[in-house]
């Protein structure tokens, strides 16, 4: 293939041009909405309402962001989301490992039907109402628990973890440890977990992002305003004209307020995606790896 580099044929030339155009097109299509939202959020309300902002902010103003930091609702939503994400991810990781490790052991009697017990829930799930009634019967409505327990194991992630254990930890190693008198719990703690740092990282990221971004469960199970996570607060603010108008500074003139509300909406969107976008460059490598691990079949 090296030699081909030297004398590019016409068809390769054409291909390279088309290929580069295609990649650039994908890049631009993805970036424009993101840059546009950021630019709008940073521009002065007058420029925004006049529709003069594309992807570069005009008359930079942080007015909208100041309003955000005065909003009790948004700040408490942020706090709640952090709480649910941290606690929820801890529960997720613990439960996923507890489930995946025994199921990865070939000498674990009954693992076949236990595996089925979990996999079946991926292809058949109870409808919304019985699920809701179950949460109600467990007295979990509007409690912290409902944000942590019902989704404690994502069966797909569990299968990924199990595949990882089966493919990277040699049986001989576990047998050797057992011959040395290690119990199963000691094997897990001292042998398996230290060897599984990469899968733990991947699971943590996947679970944390899904907690941060989840909306529907909180939307149907939580009712107290002070317990709502950020996504629900964002939805309420963005879909409800009244709420967002109340956020806008009351001292601003009426004519100006309409414009400010518009900028505020963009600022709220940026504010909501900030943590994920800021962390993204550092963690995206692991995500790609995670999808790769997932695509290996178990």
């Amino acid at each position, binding site marked *: *293939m090296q030699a081909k580099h030297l004398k590019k044929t016409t*068809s*390769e030339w054409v*291909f390279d041009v088309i*290929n*580069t155009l*295609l*990649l650039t097109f*994908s890049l631009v299509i*993805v*970036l424009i*909405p993101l840059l*546009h939202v950021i630019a709008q959020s940073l521009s002065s309300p007058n420029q925004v*309402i006049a*529709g003069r902002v*594309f992807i570069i902010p005009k008359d930079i103003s942080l007015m909208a962001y100041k309003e955000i930091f005065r909003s009790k609702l948004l700040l408490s939503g942020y706090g709640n989301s952090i709480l649910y994400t941290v606690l929820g991810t801890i529960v997720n990781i613990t*439960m996923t490992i*507890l*489930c995946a*490790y*025994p199921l990865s052991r070939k000498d674990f*009697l009954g693992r076949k039907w*236990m595996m089925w017990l979990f996999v079946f*829930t991926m*292809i*058949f*799930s*109870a*409808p*919304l*109402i*019985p699920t809701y*009634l*179950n949460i109600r019967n467990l007295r979990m409505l509007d409690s912290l628990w409902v944000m942590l*327990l*019902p989704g404690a194991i994502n069966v797909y992630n569990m299968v990924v973890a199990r595949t990882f254990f089966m493919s990277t930890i040699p049986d001989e190693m576990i047998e050797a440890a057992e011959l040395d008198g290690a119990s*199963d*719990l000691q094997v*897990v703690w001292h042998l398996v977990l230290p060897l599984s740092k990469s899968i733990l990282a991947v699971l943590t990221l996947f679970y944390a*992002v899904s907690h941060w*971004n*989840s*909306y*529907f469960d909180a939307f149907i199970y939580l009712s107290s305003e002070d317990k709502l996570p950020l*996504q629900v607060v*964002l*939805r309420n603010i*963005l879909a409800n004209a009244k709420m967002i108008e109340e956020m806008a500074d009351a001292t601003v003139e009426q004519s100006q307020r309409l414009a400010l509300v518009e900028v505020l909406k963009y600022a*709220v*969107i940026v504010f*909501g*995606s900030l943590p*994920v*976008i800021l962390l*993204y460059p550092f963690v*995206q490598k692991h995500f*790609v790896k995670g*999808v790769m691990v997932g*695509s290996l*079949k178990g």
Partner: protein
Amino acid sequence: MTTPPAINKKSRARVIYHGIMRHWQLYLLMLLPIVWVITFKYVPIWGSQIAFKDYKFAHGIAGSAWATPIYKHFLKFFTSNQFQRLMTNTIGLSLYNILVGIFPPIILAIALNYCRSKVYSKTVQMVTYMPYFISTVLVVSILTQMLSLSGIVNKAIEATGGKAIQFLSKPGWFKTLYVFSEVWQKTGYNAVVYIAALAAISPELHEAAIVDGANIWQRILHVDIPGILPTAITLTIMACGRILTMGYEKVLLMQNLQNMRASDIISTYVYRIGLAEGMQFSYSTAIGLFQSVVSLLMLTLVNGLSRKLSDNSLW
């Protein structure tokens, strides 16, 4: 598996007993997950029996009386004037989404694979992968903002002399907006699987093709495409298996009174009559159960099909 005749029943029971006792700690680890799956997954499945009952709060799930006839709620749904509309919307949106969604990740993966600059291909991959991590709430908000009357798209239409369109309240636009915003959000993520499949193609195949005088286009057509076809087939037919139970969070977020004609799918209807507006618990459960059972059957069918066609299956 057959047991050797020398081992009688009693000693087989002993083998099992010792097998369990030797690894009792593994069973201890498994205890919490089993309790969890029963409490949060199987108890609601048991509770789905209210689809065949006239559920009353005061009587509970087990205590409510059976419906007469027992399939009353199912019959009501199949004969209701909503049935056809909901089925058309659900299947229409799913199929549209699957069809439009097949090619972009494959094209992106191949383009990335043949990109001569490593840095550029890494950059494009990283950026296109990013929208996957933006929450549905925010993706829908971005869409709403950009397409609103004062948004950039309508400003551009007006600047070129056109008339502003209220995209989000037009039923005719709903499915297209849904599907193409999915493409925007998921193409980079979905491409990763194909990139992995491309990387797994043996370089010898490419070398042989080059020796035979194949140009880049021919190599894509005759080496790369066949190499990723099994993955594409599996993913697509698996998606077809979930046609009735497609994710509905985003539909719900994009739904409004004006676009309801196109945006009302089975799942959003189940939510609306069960929790949001009516409290028709049994009726809503019956529709949901119909959906789950059809999905189960279709997934089983499609899984077998996938195994036959591409030697690849979910279970």
